[in-house]
């Protein structure tokens, strides 16, 4: 990290403190004076927005936990109790439930930002890997949170998703019973999901700290993707980016509060306002929208391959679709980071994005007719993008000439 510190204690007390615990120095160096590329656009505000989202989930969640009862007989009613009886509970519950969706909106934008601008490339591989880990942990947290209201969708989501583990050869069924604490989803399952749902956000917070640490070693990537060459390329984080990030947060909060105030249930599913019944599955079960692309991949595999049955194969593809992100830094070997200077990659990135949105749509569509075939095509394309297109592009593409520095890219035209 920065070798020469920017902090000088102002008085004897500050100096005394700094000699013993240099947190003020740390905050000054990393939250205020941190040299940040001066060309960052609004896609770079989503990191701060995500920190805000995590904060909102933790604060509203801890309050919900004060009124919620993790027992199959009472959970459903206790959430209704929060929504109807608890002072302000209607808003707090809405912020938590809508907050989960907004969290994923921000996550997806943040991830696709990284993919377009090549932020996963050297020297930021660990930063990227920690990010994928956060994504996985957040999915686990949101999944377990969704089970807590114990509606029909909650219970059946728990049933279907835990069942995925039963396809693991040999240990599958014992593992499934271990996860559920019974032969099916029941009270032990709900109770432990509550415990873990409470725990995981704090684990996420810890990984976020590592993520930011890993960011502050090489510093930020930027829209042109060339390294910072001199102090002319940067501005201090505060006030330039603290203000920009705050403004980004405010903009992000507009749709957020709109949902919470006017349509808190629109992102949910009506069936979840019916209490879980282990004897009857709703006629059309769908996961929350943010899981749909991966769910579409899981469903698309309905054929056996060699000795692997369709179920296990689906699970393998489902897992691989997320785990493949860990390997992205080594699949795309092009030296040029930013998609702005990669004439072919740019288009393939766009196709990948459209394909991903198509998968989202197909995950919610009924598994019949044309949808089944489309889901297979989109699933195949998803993997081809990572395993064929990116490695091949890295070899054949001729990148556009890069600016010599960030400054030049910002001011170059004016000076020329």
């Amino acid at each position: 990290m920065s070798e020469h510190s920017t902090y000088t204690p102002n008085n004897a007390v500050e100096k005394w403190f700094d000699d013993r615990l240099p947190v003020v120095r740390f905050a000054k160096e990393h939250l205020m004076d941190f040299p940040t590329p001066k060309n960052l656009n609004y896609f770079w505000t989503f990191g701060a927005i995500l920190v805000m989202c995590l904060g909102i989930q933790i604060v509203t969640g801890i309050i919900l936990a004060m009124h919620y009862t993790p027992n199959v007989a009472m959970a459903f009613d206790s959430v209704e109790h929060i929504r109807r009886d608890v002072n302000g509970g209607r808003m707090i519950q809405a912020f938590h439930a809508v907050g989960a969706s907004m969290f994923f909106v921000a996550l997806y934008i943040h991830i696709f930002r990284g993919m377009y601008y090549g932020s996963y490339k050297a020297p930021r591989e660990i930063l990227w890997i920690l990010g994928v880990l956060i994504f996985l942990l957040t999915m686990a947290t949101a999944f377990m949170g969704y089970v807590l209201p114990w509606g029909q969708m909650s219970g059946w989501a728990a049933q279907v998703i835990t069942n995925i583990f039963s396809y693991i050869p040999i240990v599958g069924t014992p593992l499934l019973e271990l996860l559920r604490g019974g032969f099916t989803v029941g009270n032990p399952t709900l109770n432990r999901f509550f415990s873990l749902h409470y725990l995981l956000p704090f684990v996420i917070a810890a990984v976020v700290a590592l993520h930011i640490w890993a960011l502050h070693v090489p510093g930020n990537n930027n829209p042109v993707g060339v390294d910072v060459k001199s102090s002319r390329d940067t501005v201090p984080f505060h006030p330039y980016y603290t203000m920009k990030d705050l403004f980004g947060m405010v903009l992000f909060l507009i749709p957020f509060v709109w949902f919470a105030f006017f349509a808190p249930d629109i992102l949910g599913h009506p069936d979840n306002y019916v209490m879980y019944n282990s004897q009857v599955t709703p006629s059309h079960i769908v996961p929350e929208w943010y899981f749909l692309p991966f769910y579409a991949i899981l469903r698309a595999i309905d054929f056996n391959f060699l000795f692997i049955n369709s179920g296990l194969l689906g699970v393998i593809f489902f897992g691989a679709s997320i785990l493949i992100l860990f390997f992205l830094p080594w699949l795309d070997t092009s030296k040029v980071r930013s998609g702005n200077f990669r004439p072919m990659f740019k288009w393939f990135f766009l196709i990948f994005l459209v394909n991903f949105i198509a998968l989202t749509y197909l995950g919610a569509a009924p598994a019949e007719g044309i949808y089944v075939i489309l889901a297979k095509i989109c699933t195949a394309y998803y993997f081809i993008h990572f395993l064929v297109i990116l490695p091949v592009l890295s070899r054949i593409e001729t990148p556009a000439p890069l600016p010599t520095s960030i400054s030049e890219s910002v001011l170059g035209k004016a000076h020329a």
Partner: protein
Amino acid sequence: MTVQKVGQLTDRLRAAAVDSARADDLWGAGSVKCRSTGIRTLATHTEHSSTNRRDFLYIATGAVGAVGAAAVVWPLINQLNPDASTLALATIEFDVGAIEEGQSVTITWRGLPVFVRHRTAAEIEEAKAVPLADLKDPETDEQRTKPDHEQWLVMIASCTHLGCVPVGESGDFDGWFCPCHGSHYDTAGRIRRGPAPKNLVVPPYNFVSDTLVQIG
């Protein structure tokens, strides 16, 4: 401190002969004291240290530690497994006498829904007529019922795909249809089309009298 650094430090310290005889007594030959932290560490292998004995102690300590850690962790994981009150529900008895022909009931065994269907003669015919070659998970109708009680079909009501409860008397094979991802089962509960890999599971059961079934 990296091994390399420890190594360098060791060399320097040894050259200066700062290792006191007392430290050697306590730590064994080859221990070093870091000058800045004052923390004593074991030196990496040097010609002076009794490498073999130390390695053995390392491995032995590590092994005992690992076994100890596993012994502590296992109960912490095992508590997640089905508890005694869940296991206590493992066997149930059910009288099928009241179920009319063409009717099904859903009962609960170990928390799982179980279908008990009194099949019509036509359904049994249909199930028997299916050639085994047409089946994804080949089983004859006889293998799925009990002798002399073949009108009774007892099956765990969880789709073998991902565990939804299929809907009775529907689907393209007159048996069950799972709405979750579209699996079709026939009148013997065998998978015919869709993503499910296996037939609906027949739980362990037997007839203790003509109409009394014991499941589990």
